[in-house]
Every structure is written in structure tokens, then in C-alpha cells.
């Protein structure tokens, strides 16, 4: 353990901590844009500069290891002026379009500009303009909004192990892009979107779906067995975005399905009414190899809509009839690994207690 002093307060942290870790432990607020606790320190944005006794120039807290007896000052008029200049410079090369930006209200750059009250900019000048848009279907990459914090590059390399993007070009033209500046072609896990502090990376399907007055519901991903915790963002009755919080069991990381594949919820193809078959099965001549047109148009001719009462009564009558005629073991139930514990419990209870057979299974084998 190492003890150091920050703004006159003593703090003890683990040996391999950074000055920023120590500052955070004391709950002292300090701006950062390129820092992420799970990623290698970067030291690029220069916002977390602090004065350390014995070191002539200000040093970035995120990259500096602590040492015993270190004396750190996190704020002074000079430091604040430098931070302000850094922000002004970043904003001088950033589209002034918060009003239409997906991330407005959820943007670290915007928030810092707000806290530092940056209304005018001393350093207005050329701004990077990128006409071409990335054609991938998932991630909107608006590189004009990119502040080169490198979090996306690091998360893709260090967490996802993919390395689909990196810094390219030099100087003011420096840009983060896939090899040869082609369209992104990766696993589309969206980890980069999750860590991006600005509107540079967003979900393409988020576009103009809503920013304010969103309801947040913490729930569980419906895909694989990892059981990732997700947060659904709801506008009116629509899920418009999925995120995940860092304090979850999946540490906020998701995969392409967990993060981007929720459109099925609002799909127009959802079943909305009980259906009863009108065309006898033999004549429906169904084959799995038939592809388009989709099933819905086909099924419209096969079924008619019914009320719940009618459908349920019909089922009850038919099941009773079959059970009486062939015995309970002539009926079987297949439950689902997609349904909840409660539904599965009730389903097997229904098959066992109501039908009277143990013919119940689910798709564990497939």
C-alpha cells in the first residue's frame, strides 16, 4: 500500500494504482475523456493533468503511478485554464450540432463544455470534414465528432481481442478507422459504442428514436446462456436502445445480439391474436425449403383469427377429448429454454397435474 497526499488529504491506495485511482478514491472530481478503468491508461486527452510536487510540468493523473509521500494538487487557476483550453481546442474541431446529435445529454464532451461554461471559442479554425459514411449496418461512425480518445481502439483490442480499428494518418488528419479506411467489418459487439464519450459512435438503429424522458428498465438479455444484464431504454412503448451498466456481471460488455438485436420486439410480424386453422393440414403443402414470401402472408390463408375464449375453449375441448379417448400419455408438452423459470414451472405442472403425464421436455438437447 502507498500513502500519498491529494489536495492536502491523505489517501492510501494499492501499490500499482495510478494517481487518478487515488483521486477517485477521495471522491475528488476531475475531468477525463480518454480514461476507462478497464483499459490501458492512454494519457491523450490531457484533461486529468495535476501538479505533482517535484515534477516540473503538469502530469496526467491517469498515467502516473502513485509513489509513497507523493503530493498532488488537482486544481489551480493554471490547471483549470489548461483544461479549459484543451476543451476549447477539442470543441474547435467538433461539429456544433448538439441539437441533432444522438448523444446530446449523454455526451461527456458536452457535459464538460457545460461545466466549464464554454460559450465562445478562441481557437475556431478548420474542422475535419468526412463526407463518406461507414456503410456497416450497425454502428454509425461519425468521425467528425471523434475526439481521438482512443477508447474504441483499446476496447476492441484489449477487451474484445479483435483489433478492427486503429489510429491512422497523422497530425490534424489523424483518424480512427478500419484498415485502409474501409467500412467496418467486425463482430459488431458495440463495445466501442459503449465506451465512446461523444456522438462519434452510435447505433444506426438509434437514429432519431428519442433522447429525453426515456424510461430505463434493467433486465436480462434474451439470447444465450451468459445471462448478461441489459438496460432497455423505452420511449413511449418502444424499446429504442439497449445498453448495459459497468457494475453488472457482464461488466457492461455485450455482444452484437445483446446490444443491437432488439427490433424483433416491435416487429410487425408479431402474433397478436389467437389463430385457428381453417385449411386442413394435408393441403397446406408446407416445406421448409420455401423461402420468401414470408410465412405471414401464407399463414393468413391457413388460419382465422379467434377470440381468446374461443381458442382456449377449443383447445380444452380437444385435449379433453383426446385424453379421454387415448389416455393422458397420448399428449405431450414441449416447453422452452426461452421462457422464464415461472413459465417453465407452470408448464410442467400443467402437463403433469392437469394432463396427467410426464411427457414434458424442452430443447436442452438442441
Amino acid at each position, binding site marked *: 500500500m502507498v500513502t500519498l497526499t491529494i489536495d492536502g488529504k491523505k489517501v492510501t491506495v494499492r501499490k500499482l494504482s495510478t494517481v487518478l485511482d487515488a483521486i477517485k478514491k477521495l471522491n475528488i472530481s476531475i475531468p477525463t475523456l480518454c480514461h476507462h478503468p478497464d483499459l490501458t491508461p492512454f494519457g491523450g486527452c490531457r484533461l486529468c493533468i495535476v501538479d505533482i510536487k517535484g515534477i516540473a510540468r503538469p502530469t*496526467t493523473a491517469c*498515467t502516473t503511478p502513485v509513489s509513497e509521500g507523493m503530493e498532488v494538487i488537482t486544481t489551480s487557476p493554471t490547471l483549470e485554464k489548461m483544461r479549459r483550453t484543451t476543451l476549447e*481546442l477539442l470543441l474547435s474541431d467538433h461539429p456544433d450540432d448538439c441539437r441533432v446529435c444522438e448523444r446530446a445529454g449523454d455526451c461527456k464532451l458536452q457535459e464538460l463544455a457545460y461545466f466549464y461554461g464554454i460559450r465562445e471559442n478562441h*481557437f475556431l479554425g478548420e474542422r475535419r470534414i468526412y463526407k463518406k459514411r461507414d456503410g456497416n449496418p450497425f454502428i454509425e461512425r461519425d468521425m467528425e465528432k471523434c475526439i481521438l480518445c482512443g477508447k474504441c481502439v483499446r476496447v476492441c483490442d484489449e477487451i474484445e481481442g479483435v483489433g478492427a480499428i486503429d*489510429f491512422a494518418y497523422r497530425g490534424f488528419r*489523424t483518424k480512427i478507422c478500419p484498415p485502409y479506411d474501409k467500412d467496418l467489418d467486425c463482430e459488431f459487439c458495440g463495445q466501442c459504442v459503449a465506451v465512446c464519450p461523444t456522438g462519434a459512435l452510435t447505433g444506426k438503429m438509434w437514429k432519431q428514436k428519442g433522447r429525453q424522458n426515456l424510461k430505463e428498465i434493467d433486465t436480462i438479455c434474451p439470447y444465450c446462456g451468459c445471462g448478461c444484464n441489459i438496460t432497455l431504454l423505452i420511449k413511449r412503448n418502444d424499446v429504442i436502445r439497449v445498453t448495459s451498466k459497468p457494475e453488472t456481471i457482464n461488466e457492461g460488455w455485450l455482444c452484437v445480439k445483446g446490444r443491437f438485436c432488439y427490433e424483433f420486439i416491435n416487429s410487425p410480424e408479431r402474433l397478436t391474436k389467437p389463430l385457428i386453422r381453417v385449411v386442413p393440414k394435408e393441403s397446406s403443402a408446407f416445406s421448409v425449403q420455401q423461402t420468401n414470401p414470408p410465412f405471414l402472408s401464407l399463414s393468413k390463408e391457413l388460419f382465422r383469427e379467434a377470440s381468446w375464449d374461443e381458442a382456449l375453449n377449443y383447445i380444452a375441448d380437444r385435449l379433453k377429448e383426446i385424453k379421454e379417448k387415448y389416455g393422458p400419455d397420448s399428449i405431450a408438452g414441449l416447453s422452452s429454454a426461452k421462457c422464464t423459470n415461472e413459465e417453465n414451472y407452470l408448464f410442467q405442472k400443467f402437463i403433469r397435474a392437469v394432463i396427467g403425464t410426464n411427457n414434458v421436455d424442452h430443447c436442452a438437447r438442441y
Partner: protein
Amino acid sequence: MSKEIKIKVCTGTGGMAAGGENVLSLFRNALLSAGIDATFSEKCSVDKVGCRGFCGMDLLVDVIVDGKKITYKYVKPEMVDRIVQEHIIRGNPVVEWMVEDDFYNFHKKQTKVVLSQCGEIDPEDINAYIEVGGYDSLKKVITSMTPEETISVIKNSGLRGRGGAGFPTGLKWEICHRKKSDKKYIICNADEGDPGAFMDRSVLEGNPHSVLEGLTIGAYSIGAEEGYVYIRAEYPLAVNRLRKAIEQSRQKGFIGNDILGKRFNFDIKIKLGAGAFVCGEETALIASIEGKRGMPRARPPFPVDSGLWGKPTVINNVETLANVPYIIKNGAEWFASFGTEKSKGTKVFALTGKVKNNGLIEVPLGITLREIIFDIGGGIEGEKMFKAVQTGGPSGGCIPAEFLDLEVDYESLAQVGSIMGSGGMVVLDETNCMVNTAKFFLEFTQAESCGKCTPCRVGTKRLLEILERITSGNGKEGDIELLEELSYYIKTSSLCGLGMTAPNPVLSTIKYFRDEYEAHIKDRRCPAVVCRDLITYSILEELCTGCGACKRACPADAIRGIRKKTHTIDTSLCIKCGTCFDVCKFKAIMKS
């Protein structure tokens, strides 16, 4: 017939460009056809040698007959026959082709250590190096000295890093030597990126073995078994000679396993840089060797703690390492006898710009700028006024005439707002606009910024934009102060040396030539008449002969006039390209 004939042809990059290879083979053929065996005879040789510094006079050829050396300048293939016939066969040197006083003056105040064998020996032949005592120092170190003893010699010599920052080399080795690690690395930084700098290149082209010997001694001292030379791919000749040298050194057993029969293994790999200036920064260089984009990272940890692949690593510049064998051979006291209190030894500079004698020089530290520029450099070209000297390349600053008697060392240069850097020295005269000069260097650093940190990526861009508006006549009140403020910010908050030093050209020119900035901003005037947007071209009636040369040359059809009558320039059409100024034989075009 003479007893002993040696011909040395410069085949550095400058020499090659001037036809060195061709001249070399012509000399061989001429000697052969004259019945003099230049290939096998002990007493007769035609050798390619490295650069001897005065590249302005290439192709330089030494003809040594019985120990008497005559140097010829501007040698062309068609001159070979006459030199052989008259000088070698008949014993009458061709006087009109010989170098003159300026060549000797150029060398008079120089002290050559690192460059001592450049231009003397064949860089592609390890035996030539061994003949002049090469690898003796390595033998001495490995057979009779401990690593600690070796480090102590280097420490006592006072050698400091020649890459620019001037960190004591012995101390760096000592820190790394003390680190406990299963693996350590030593890297030679040959990523010489300053525009106009060619010190390291010349050493590698002229005497690559001295660098390898220094690197191996370093490896022995710190306990590294693997070394890298990180060199720009734009130096094909240096790379080629380095490759040959490593191969020869391996064959002779100076690198490899059980070097000189002792339990010391060391091998050297070459890693080519792709031309990024920032890769000269040590952490970026390490990233580049590791196969990543060359981007610096924050220090600490320093490379001696966690360098290449996370292992303790020493990085030394080419010139630093080339000094090492000479220090071991001649002793720490000998080396320390050159230089000043805190800066020992000699330093190689690439002297360029508006001096008469352009070239590569090696001088003892503590020499004055005046001696360098006026004695060695021969003064300003065209009898113009000296204005400033820019040292340290794009990261350095401009030093005005009032400091001409400054003794050059690490500290003194820093005191006047510049740096030693790797040794670039650009002389500026009255026709150089200082604002434009600052802009030139900033264009370079901005384009070479790796883009990682905000101050360097965006800050230098904004600096450049302010300079652009000043030089284009759109400067605003307060721009100088804004430049100063932004420069200070960039210096203090950038991540690496590139950003920290990038504003130096701006700050030093504002400091010493503020009036030029003010003239641009307030009077919309460029005192040196350089900034295109601030100058107008006109034709002086009294000098114009009406020859029409300017009219024909003008790409914008902005010049009117009939033959033999005074011509005029339509300023609304003039694009200020300066072509008329260049073509007028009567000095009738005026820039103002």
C-alpha cells in the same frame, strides 16, 4: 612510377548522387589500363569511402600518392582520365580541379572523433575498420573489463545523449544494468527525422561498424542479449551498409554467441521505420518495433524500467554509440578534455541554410556559433546579413545575432530558447522572414504529430492557422499574445517531446523578432519580403529594357507592355509567383 597510390572516392549519399559509383569504376579501369593493379596490389587501392562532410563540393576524390594527399572537387566521369594521366602517371596534380582554401578552412576548426574515419575507410569492409583499430575497444571491454568498469568509464567521460535531450549515457546504462530482468534490450535510435539533418545517416554510411561496436559494448554493460537498430527506410544506403556490417561482424565473431570466446551473447536486428518523425521519440519507437502504430506513451515508466516488450531497455542515438569505442580506446579523460563543464566531447552538426559552406561538421562542444557559421561555414552567402540560426530542427528555436558568441552546449542553447536537438543548424539571413520560418517548422511538426494528445494534434494546428493568417495579411490584434498563450499551453501539456518542443520556433521568433510579427499584423507588411500575400511586384521604369522576358514567363498573363518599352504588372491579375523576378536580367522587377 609511384610506389604507393590510394584513391578514395566519396560514396556517401551525396557522393553517390554526384556519380560516385561510376567515377569509382572509371578510376579502377583507368588504373588497370595504365597497367596499375588497383584491386590486388598492396600498394595500390581504389576505395569507396563515406562522406567527409563537405557535400557541397561532391564529388570529392582523394588521390594519395606516396602519402601526399590531393583532394579534387566536383569530379565528373570525364575528368578521371586526365587525373590518372597527369597526376598519377606523370606526377603533376591537376591544379585547377583541386579544392581550395575554403575546403581547408571548413576543416580547420573541426575536431573529428565520430567522423574521424568517415571518408577515410571503406565502410563496406570490416577489415578496413579493424585496420584502424576497430573492435579493439570491444575486445578490451569483453576480455579485461567488467560491465561496471565499462559503465564507469562512460560515466566519467561525461558523454551525454546525442539524440537531443542530453541524458548522461553512463547513468542510463547504470540504471538499466542494475535492473533485474530475464531479458533486456538495447536499441540504437537511427530514426533521424529532422528535416535537413543527416548526421546519423553519414555515420552509418561512412563507418557503420563504429555504431555496432558501441551498441555491443552497451549491451555488454547493461546485460542485453538482443539489440535493435531502428532506422528509417528512407536511408537505403545506410540500411544496406548496416546489413553488410552486421553480417561481417557476425562472421568475425564480434556479435553472436560466445563473443570473443567469452560467455557473452548478443545479436542485432534491423527494424525499418516507415518515416514517421515521432518514431524518433523513444516510447513511440518501442511501440513501432513491437508492431504497433508509433505513438508515444506517457513516462514514467521509462524504458529503462519497462521498455521493449515491457523489459528494461536502453535507447541510444547513433552518434552517442559511435563515440563509445573511442572513449574506451582513449579513455574518459581524453574525451572529457573536449567540451565545456557540463557538455563533454564533440558534436556533429548538419550546417545548412544561407552559409557558404554547407555540410556535415564535427566540433568540440563549447565552440561559439560565430566560429561555426563564419569560420567553418565561411559566412553568409552572397554577402547578406546574418539574421539567425535555427538549431535543433523543428523542435528547436531561432537564435539571433546577439548570441553569436554563445558557446554551444546543451544548457546554453536551452537558455536562449532553443535546444541542441540532434544537431540540425540552419542559418538564416536578412531575406528570411521569421514568421514564415516559424510557420515552416510548424507545418512540419503539425503534419508529423501522431494525433494522440489534444494539445499537439489540435493545438499545433491552431498555432499554424494563426501563423498562416498573419503571413497572409489577416493577422489580428492580440494574435501574438494568443500565439504565446497557446504555445505555452502546448509546451506544458503535451504528452511527448514532439508537442513539448513544437512551439519553440514560434516562441523564439516572437521573443527575438517580435517587430517582424507586428509589421505583418499592424502594417500588413513582410519586412523580409517573403510572405507572398503581403508583397507586390512592380516594374522599375528606369531599369526595364522592355525585353519581354517577364511577359513571356508570366503564367497569369499579368504583365503588359510592348517591345522595348517599359512593361507594367497588373496587380489584380498577379498571382505573386515570383517568376518575373527570377527571369529579369536587369533587376527591374521590384518586390515590396
